């Protein structure tokens, strides 16, 4: 597969109902908030994790789609049996210190990693090779996702009818009830912008097939990421701007401005509680020439 030859930008909308899309480790796992605007945030790395997990589920062990940054939960689906594994723990300290000083060798390593690992081909990776070729900048760049409106997290107290240890049971004299907390956002519609550079794709071999897989994972990633904390999350809209040329035909911000998400005025005095409370419009007339808009979802 040859690398893609067009530059792309995308606007991706997803929403959460009664769930926590991305907890903030600094705030006791409360949903992330922008302190200045009270809008919700979802970090770039949170979405990248979901893309990686989707690709693992979709592609399994097929060649060229291994994932370097793994979650163990997904590892359990792997049935890599009967092959000689190259365990990282078997590395001796000396071997780890040996860096390929030779640039050609480093390039070879990088190329091999790119052709075998989808996430390195897509997002890039840092290898400690000491030469520039060991750092891969991937073609796909994601920004932070921000909610359209301010969100109000709700703290929900829950009880558990069991305790963990005998000691706790003794302290409670057999009542055995503990309290827990969940943080949810009743509803939030989030918008995220992304960029795909054709020129960097050339260097990592990110192909049209990989791009299709990226769109697929954005559309479907929440379907395989259900959990007690997430509530209902769904991909709502994916607008892809395709430039005619590799360098691009228009500034990215001009393209993003053509996608307008606003509250429907009829009931805008109350809080939004569903995707139907929003209107997504695209100013197609304002699209610069040389850019095609694909509405993939």
């Amino acid at each position: 597969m040859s690398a893609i030859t067009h530059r792309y930008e995308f606007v991706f909308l997803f929403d959460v109902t009664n769930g926590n899309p991305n907890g903030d480790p600094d705030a006791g796992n409360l949903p992330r908030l922008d302190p200045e605007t009270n809008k919700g945030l979802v970090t770039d790395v949170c979405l990248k994790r979901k893309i990686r997990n989707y690709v693992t589920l979709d592609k399994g062990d097929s060649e060229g789609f291994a994932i370097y940054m793994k979650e163990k939960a997904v590892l359990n689906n792997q049935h890599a049996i009967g092959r000689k594994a190259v365990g990282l723990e078997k590395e001796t300290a000396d071997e780890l210190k040996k860096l390929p000083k030779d640039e050609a060798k480093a390039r070879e390593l990088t190329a091999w990693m790119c052709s075998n690992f989808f996430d390195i081909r897509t997002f890039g990776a840092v290898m400690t090779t000491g030469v520039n070729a060991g750092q891969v900048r991937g073609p796909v760049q994601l920004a932070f996702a921000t909610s359209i409106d301010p969100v109000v997290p709700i703290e929900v107290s829950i009880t558990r009818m069991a305790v963990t240890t005998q000691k706790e049971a003794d302290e409670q004299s057999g009542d055995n009830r503990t309290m827990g907390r969940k943080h949810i956002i009743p509803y939030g519609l989030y918008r995220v912008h992304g960029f795909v550079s054709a020129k960097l794709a050339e260097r990592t071999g990110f192909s049209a097939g990989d791009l299709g897989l990226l769109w697929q994972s954005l559309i479907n990633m929440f379907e395989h990421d259900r959990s007690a904390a997430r509530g209902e999350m769904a991909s709502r809209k994916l607008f892809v701007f395709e430039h005619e040329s590799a360098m691009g035909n228009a500034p990215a911000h001009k393209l993003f401005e053509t996608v307008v998400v606003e509250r429907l005025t009829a009931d805008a005095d109350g809080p939004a509680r569903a995707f139907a409370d929003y209107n997504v419009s695209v100013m197609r007339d304002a699209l610069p020439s040389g850019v095609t808009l694909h509405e993939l979802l």
Partner: protein
Amino acid sequence: MAFGVRLHVWGERACFTRPEMKVERVSYDAMTPSAARGILDAIHWKPAIRWHVDRIHVLKPIRFESIRRNEVGSKLSPGAVSKAMKAATTDGLWNLVDEDRQQRAATVLRDVAYVIEAHFDLTPKAGDEDSVGKHLDIFNRRARKGQCFQMPCFGVREFPAHFSLVEGDEAMPQPDAALTGARDLGWMLHDIDFDQGNTPRFFRAHMQDGVIDVPPWHSDEVKS
């Protein structure tokens, strides 16, 4: 300003990491010349030219925000890759992120806008086909159309930098009133000296009414 350019850049967030606070990242108050050069490079660069940042205009008040994220603690080791290549399998060559976790906070800038004033020199690698006019035209054409090699960013790739060219006769965007007066930003990274084994070099950054004058790369003010 014979072959200088002016580029207006803006974005939601930025993180120009201070080298002395890299683990829990803390951003400089303003864009470093090195980051500005990176933005110009992302739009147009060839080995034949080298960008020099002359002035950085800060347009928005300096505000910070803290973000904590789960990051991984280790990098790929080439040794492990060579082994996997020899064995022709990717089995075991991965990083288990939930066992190699580091939660790190980053103190980043919010709602930034700058104007980068810069020019470029031809380097020894320039051939007969490279001329100042040619590269200047390419840069201006791309910046005008919003073309870029890759989306420029403010320090880290998750903070994209939107850009537009400030044409020769166009008025400069005016800095926010809060930036009036003189401010000493302390020692700031100028750029990395790649010819001298990647030595960082620093300069004393003074902001006067939002404008940081960047001393030339080889002047005495720049220390490593």
